[in-house]
């Protein structure tokens, strides 16, 4: 017997338990991608049992099927273009009335649906009795009670779905009356649509008319392309009706349509579908928690503790796996160092490939822990409360209450990381606010910028270290918020997206859900960012390696080394070759080694200056002088594009100190403090520049991926660098004018 094969879409409101049900049905057999051209996640999985095998698609959670939000357009396009055999509409039984609003819209479209009456246990606990059979009869679609958390009802649900698909009946679109005026216009338009076969190959006739009356931009545009004359005629009908309704009822067609949909739902539920055994106005557990958690004084304190906890969790517990990975890549580098012949290939493998891949993988544990933490906050319902409490502040800067998470993780508390921070903006649903957040989180002081600040503060502000670090954090926050405001009134201007948001009841997250959520996102990061980051890493390596020093110069350094070596007694030379550890060497051998290392460092400095990056740095000196930076600083900042802590090690090379470990930069700090051309003012200018200039390329790649376009990645490189430079020049010039 042939297996029944079909595609089934899962749809429902956010927080209705859709993802939990999807996980319960598909288990680990799922994969995540994106809908074509947009950043909305598309999850697919397989449910195979008995005599059927279903391909399940998890549509984005929506409250409606209008064309306002990206999620809604994506869900609708999928239904229209892919034509799944069936939609399983998951509804939260405890807020049935609102959840059925989406179901009614599927039915208006004539899409066959099966309703999963989810979280029936919660509704019963609250004293709601729901007659599923009666609801099924009244709506004319199967209704199956389920509890997604423990998988109860899922077999019955799939059995009903299979039966419906086998029966093969396409539902007739549900006809609701929307009041006399609207109904008349509908009938008039539907007749014309049918007569002209206007869009009828894709959409039901009455539905198209309905969408016209609802002012649906997507359908209007498709209509204009298909038949401009008819589209104009419809537009006139809509305008006429709108004017009429304004005059008589002070209302709009779309408002009346929504009212009548809810009216239809109310009339269905009133026919004995729902009965209440307890007083529904009493406080539920969730409300009681809210009384404390969002209380005026205690609320912000608890929130502070939660933020600190998440931060601590992400950055402390990921330390160990990060160390393992660093150890692994260090070991790989060591193996390459030991077994490969000196030369370009070796340098490419170590500095380009191993460091590059290591860089990508080094972020993976951070991202994993961060997403795990956020998944707990999100699934439990607390994240929505944070947005609720903080929205007033963030709205002022054109952002959204939910932006706070991304800022904190990026380094709002110094020491975060912009890469997971950028990815944390996924919890933001409003497009403009999300983009503004994406573009400003890299200003926060991530863990990689800290060594740069530490170096400069130790060299020039040694007596006020703590104060300086607090000020640096404050400047970053202020800068980020003001830039967000600036972006929101210029490049991403537009009214703020409506906040109107559900505060879902508090729920215990399921461990399985958390793990799937975390793993998916981490894997996406590794897969997507990995390849590009490797390529850029190799490119940066090449920039700092080519062109190489001319042979004559290399020879000069070799001669110097040979001269030093031949002047030394052979015993000491042997000693250096035999013993690796510095402290075991005799004083004479140490002195010789130091002299040789000085020559190596001088050669590295010349090579760096000779490379493309070095030339670029020297060429930029004319401009960068305005901010007090010489060519060495310029190269270091170019290197910082790879990762901000590279600024420290590159400065070390440029000052002939050899490779400087960013964690132990004291010698470099002393060198800077005593070098001509450096002053506290230059240091301050460099600190400002470091806070604001182009994000590291890993962040840029992530920004592009999250914003859905390389344009925004490019924008953040250019805009941030110009902003940083203007600020640094201002600081340096004003400071110089005052004689600092």
């Amino acid at each position, binding site marked *: 017997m042939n297996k029944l094969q079909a595609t089934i879409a899962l749809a429902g409101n956010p927080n209705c338990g859709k993802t939990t049900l999807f996980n319960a049905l598909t288990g680990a057999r799922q994969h995540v991608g994106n809908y074509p051209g947009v950043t909305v996640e598309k999850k697919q999985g397989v449910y195979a049992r008995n005599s059927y095998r279903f391909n399940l698609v998890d549509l984005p959670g929506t409250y409606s099927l209008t064309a306002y939000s990206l999620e809604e357009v994506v869900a609708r396009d999928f239904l229209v273009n892919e034509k799944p055999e069936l939609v399983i509409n998951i509804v939260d039984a405890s807020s049935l009335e609102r959840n059925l609003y989406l179901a009614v819209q599927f039915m208006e479209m004539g899409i066959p649906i099966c309703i999963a009456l989810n979280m029936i246990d919660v509704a019963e606990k609250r004293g709601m009795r729901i007659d599923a059979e009666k609801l099924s009869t009244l709506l004319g679609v199967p209704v199956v009670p389920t509890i997604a958390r423990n998988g109860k009802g899922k077999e019955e649900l799939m059995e009903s779905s299979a039966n419906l698909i086998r029966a093969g009946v396409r539902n007739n679109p549900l006809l609701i009356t929307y009041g006399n005026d609207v109904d008349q216009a509908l009938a008039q338009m539907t007749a014309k649509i049918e007569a002209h076969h206007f869009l009828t190959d894709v959409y039901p006739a009455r539905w198209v008319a309905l969408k016209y009356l609802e002012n649906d931009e997507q359908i209007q545009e498709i209509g204009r392309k298909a038949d401009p004359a008819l589209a104009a005629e419809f537009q006139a009908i809509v305008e006429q009706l709108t004017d009429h309704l304004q005059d008589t009822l002070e209302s709009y067609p779309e408002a009346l349509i929504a009212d009548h949909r809810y009216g239809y739902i*109310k009339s269905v539920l009133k026919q004995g579908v729902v009965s209440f055994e307890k007083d529904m106005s009493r406080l539920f557990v969730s409300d009681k928690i*809210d009384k404390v958690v969002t209380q005026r004084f205690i609320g912000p304190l608890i929130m502070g503790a939660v933020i600190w906890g998440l931060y601590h969790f992400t950055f402390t517990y990921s330390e160990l796996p990060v160390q393992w990975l660093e150890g692994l890549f260090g070991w790989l580098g060591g193996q390459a160092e030991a077994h490969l012949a000196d030369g370009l290939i070796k340098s490419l493998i170590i500095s380009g490939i191993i460091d590059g891949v290591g860089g990508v993988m080094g972020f993976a544990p951070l991202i994993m822990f961060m997403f795990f933490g956020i998944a707990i906050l999100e699934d439990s319902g607390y994240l929505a409360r944070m947005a609720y409490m903080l929205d007033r502040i963030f709205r002022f800067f054109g952002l959204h209450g939910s932006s706070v998470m991304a800022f904190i993780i990026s380094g709002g508390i110094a020491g975060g990381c912009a890469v997971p921070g950028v990815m944390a903006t996924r919890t933001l649903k409003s497009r403009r606010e999300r983009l503004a957040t994406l573009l400003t989180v890299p200003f926060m002081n991530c863990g990689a910028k800290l060594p740069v600040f530490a170096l400069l503060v130790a060299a020039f502000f040694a007596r006020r270290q703590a104060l300086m670090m607090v000020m640096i954090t404050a400047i970053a926050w202020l800068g980020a918020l003001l830039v967000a405001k600036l972006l929101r009134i210029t490049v991403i201007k537009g009214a703020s997206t409506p906040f*109107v948001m559900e505060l879902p009841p508090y729920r215990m997250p399921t461990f399985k859900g958390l793990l799937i959520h975390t793993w998916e996102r981490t894997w996406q990061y590794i897969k997507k960012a990995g390849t590009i980051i490797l390529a850029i890493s190799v490119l940066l390596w090449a920039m700092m390696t080519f062109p190489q020093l001319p042979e004559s110069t290399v020879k000069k350094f070799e001669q110097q080394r040979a001269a030093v070596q031949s002047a030394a007694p052979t015993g000491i030379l042997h000693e250096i070759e035999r013993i690796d550890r510095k402290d075991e060497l005799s004083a004479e051998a140490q002195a010789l080694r130091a002299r040789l290392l000085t020559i190596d460092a001088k050669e590295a400095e010349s090579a760096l200056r000779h490379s493309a990056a070095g030339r670029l740095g020297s060429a930029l000196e004319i401009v960068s002088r305005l901010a007090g930076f010489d060519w060495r600083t310029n190269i270091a900042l170019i290197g910082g594009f790879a990762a901000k802590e590279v600024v420290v090690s590159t400065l070390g090379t440029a000052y002939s100190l050899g490779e400087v470990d960013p964690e132990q930069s004291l010698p470099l700090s002393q060198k800077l403090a005593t070098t001509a051309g450096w002053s506290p003012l230059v240091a301050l200018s460099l600190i400002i520049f470091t806070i604001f200039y182009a994000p590291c390329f890993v962040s840029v790649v992530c920004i592009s991926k999250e914003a859905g376009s390389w344009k925004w990645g490019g924008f953040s490189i250019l805009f941030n660098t110009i902003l940083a430079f203007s600020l640094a020049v201002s600081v340096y010039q004003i400071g110089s004018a005052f004689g600092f």
Partner: protein
Amino acid sequence: MPCINLRQMKENQSGTISRIKANGQLGRRIRDMGLVPGTKIKVHGRAPLYDPVALRLMGFTLTLRNNEADYIEVEVDE
């Protein structure tokens, strides 16, 4: 029963929505969430900075900003 603006409602006060004045994206969002004439609501609380406001309706909690609440008129219960 007096008709007032949602913004002016006090904590724990309840009433029935009489009119929604918003159109376009905001109007759509408000209606999608069940805020239509005839719906019973109760003010559940306000955020620490007195904005947004949290409402209870149809068995769930909804929050919206004060400037969004301005578009909603409510017939309050005595």
